[in-house]
């Protein structure tokens, strides 16, 4: 009865904007879903394939800037811009992926991808006449109405848009995990040499996953641009986004489907509600990262505490579902 544990959170997430009217809470939920999708796209590389990249912010930011600039300068519809931004990001993904084909050690790949991401940030900062640099690119249009749905009033349409993007990303990750591609990815993660020896085309598979992952990140970046309506290089192309992604995926559980989602919700809610403690916020954030690594190195999802809880809920579910089917 696995559908049971998937369906209920989905119904809750889908129904939340009806229950909660507060625009602030809707905004936080939008961020949660956006980061969940973004973390899932990074998880494809780091968790599924074992390629520890540290430059995912570049794909997110390129997608955001492409979509925004195309809409402002050329009047291209944000709907189309979203997809073009995704393709631009996946082109960059291929460029980033190629040097990573020959590298194996996690730190090496992390540094190489960080270097490429920093290049894209500085380029965006310096091309002031196109991106307006750190002054911020403003005047980004909202999404044009889709049939009867207008994106001009309220945040609920945005909520459902990111909800759909989130579902697509998660479904894609689920499908990849079950497909032959997923097996190839897992074999690369466990041992590249062994993968090669059983006939996995390692470079090809790596490029494919880089393309998919960066496309998704670019798509989400495009959404962000037309939602937040202002972009600066340091906010969308800077290292802090990457740090959040690392925290989310690691705290949630790397390489699992639910891990990045749980992590994204936890970290986003935590950073939002830790605002109460003001200046200590990031201090606590750093400490949590350290503590997680020491006490739950494989993340919350697979930690003994959660397993015990899910044992109990599984037991309860069996009673409920069993009771329903027998009656």
């Amino acid at each position: 009865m696995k559908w049971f544990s998937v369906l209920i959170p989905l119904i809750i997430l889908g129904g939340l904007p009806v229950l909660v009217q507060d625009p602030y809470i809707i905004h936080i939920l939008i961020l949660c879903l956006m980061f969940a999708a973004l973390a899932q796209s990074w998880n494809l590389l780091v968790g599924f394939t074992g390629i520890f990249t540290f430059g995912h912010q570049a794909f997110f930011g390129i997608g955001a800037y492409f979509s925004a600039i195309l809409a402002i300068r050329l009047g291209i519809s944000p709907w189309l811009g979203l997809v073009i931004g995704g393709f631009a990001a996946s082109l960059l993904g291929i460029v980033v992926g190629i040097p990573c084909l020959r590298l194996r050690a996690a730190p090496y790949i992390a540094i190489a991808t960080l270097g490429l991401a920093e290049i894209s940030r500085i380029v965006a900062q310096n091309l002031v006449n196109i991106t307006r640099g750190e002054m911020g690119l403003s005047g980004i249009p909202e999404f044009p109405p889709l049939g009867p749905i207008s994106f001009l009033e309220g945040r609920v349409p945005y909520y459902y848009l990111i909800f759909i993007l989130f579902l697509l990303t998660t479904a894609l990750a689920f499908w990849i995990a079950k497909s032959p591609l997923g097996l190839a990815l897992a074999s690369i993660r466990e041992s590249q040499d062994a993968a090669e020896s059983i006939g996995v085309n390692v470079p090809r598979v790596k490029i494919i996953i880089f393309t998919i992952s960066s496309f998704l990140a670019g798509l989400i970046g495009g959404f962000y641009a037309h939602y937040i309506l202002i972009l600066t290089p340091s906010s969308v192309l800077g290292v802090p986004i990457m740090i959040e992604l690392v925290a989310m995926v690691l705290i949630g559980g790397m390489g699992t489907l639910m891990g990045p989602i749980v992590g994204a919700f936890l970290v986003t809610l935590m950073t939002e509600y830790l605002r109460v403690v003001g200046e200590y916020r990031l201090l606590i954030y750093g400490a949590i990262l350290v503590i997680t690594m020491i006490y739950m190195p494989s993340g919350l999802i697979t930690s003994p505490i959660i397993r015990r809880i899910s044992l109990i809920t599984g037991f309860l579910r069996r009673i409920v579902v069993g009771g329903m089917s027998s009656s």
Partner: protein
Amino acid sequence: MIYQLLEQIISGLISGASYALVGAGLSLIWGTLKMINFAHGEFYMLGGYALFLGGSVFGLHPALAALAAVLVVMVISCVTEKSLISSLLDKPGWDVSPFVITLGISIFLQNLALKVWGERFRNVPYFDSSIYEVLGVRISGQRLIILAVALIVIAVFMIFLKKTRMGWSLKATAQDREAATLVGIDIKSIYMWTFGLSGALAALAGAMLAPIYSVNPWMGIPLLIKGFVVCVLGGLGSLEGAILAGFALGIAENLGVMFWTSEWKDVISYSLFVIVLWVRPSGLFGEKEW
């Protein structure tokens, strides 16, 4: 033109000296522990603050303050290794876990510094504010001191690695951990000292550069990324490589500024780095691909 070239090369050597110090520390840790230290930039930052405090609060002589800064940070980084890193050693996920834990330490230390010392940029007076002429190029005394200290420390460090028992055991651990344990080297303490020495090198760079770039909680980040670049350019784990690459990168950046505006300086160095990775993934001086 020649004069300009010479001027850029000399200032490249000086900024290269700081890259070399930071890169050498990172490379040392990679060599022995096979991990990347994301908090390295914060040891550099703490070095800067320790110098500032020693100089302007306790009124120490700059040389003494720098020495104190190095020692204090060395202790901090030994404690960090002993209390946090060593518990992760050889556990599953060792390829990623140190990266993340040091990322956490980095965020923590940055914000601790922000909390304790505020976000004001602290200025530290030059150790030597006179101007000297070398080969017809005018250089401030501070920059000459940086270059001289860096060269001396690097030389001493090399001798330490080559000639002392401690240095030997450090290199032995880097080469083969099991074999090192077999011949009776206490690798746990070697790990701690490696971390300490690496932190000391970063703190030294921080203390020397504090008068040129003012001290602030975020000063470590740009230098950390440069350190990474240097480390990979030189070939991960190769100490000599990191030092050479540090000076090379400093000179390349400064020569680049002659042809492009200085905003593009970092783009030049990162592009150089990506190209090197593309054609020679083991780095310029490394023998091994990781």
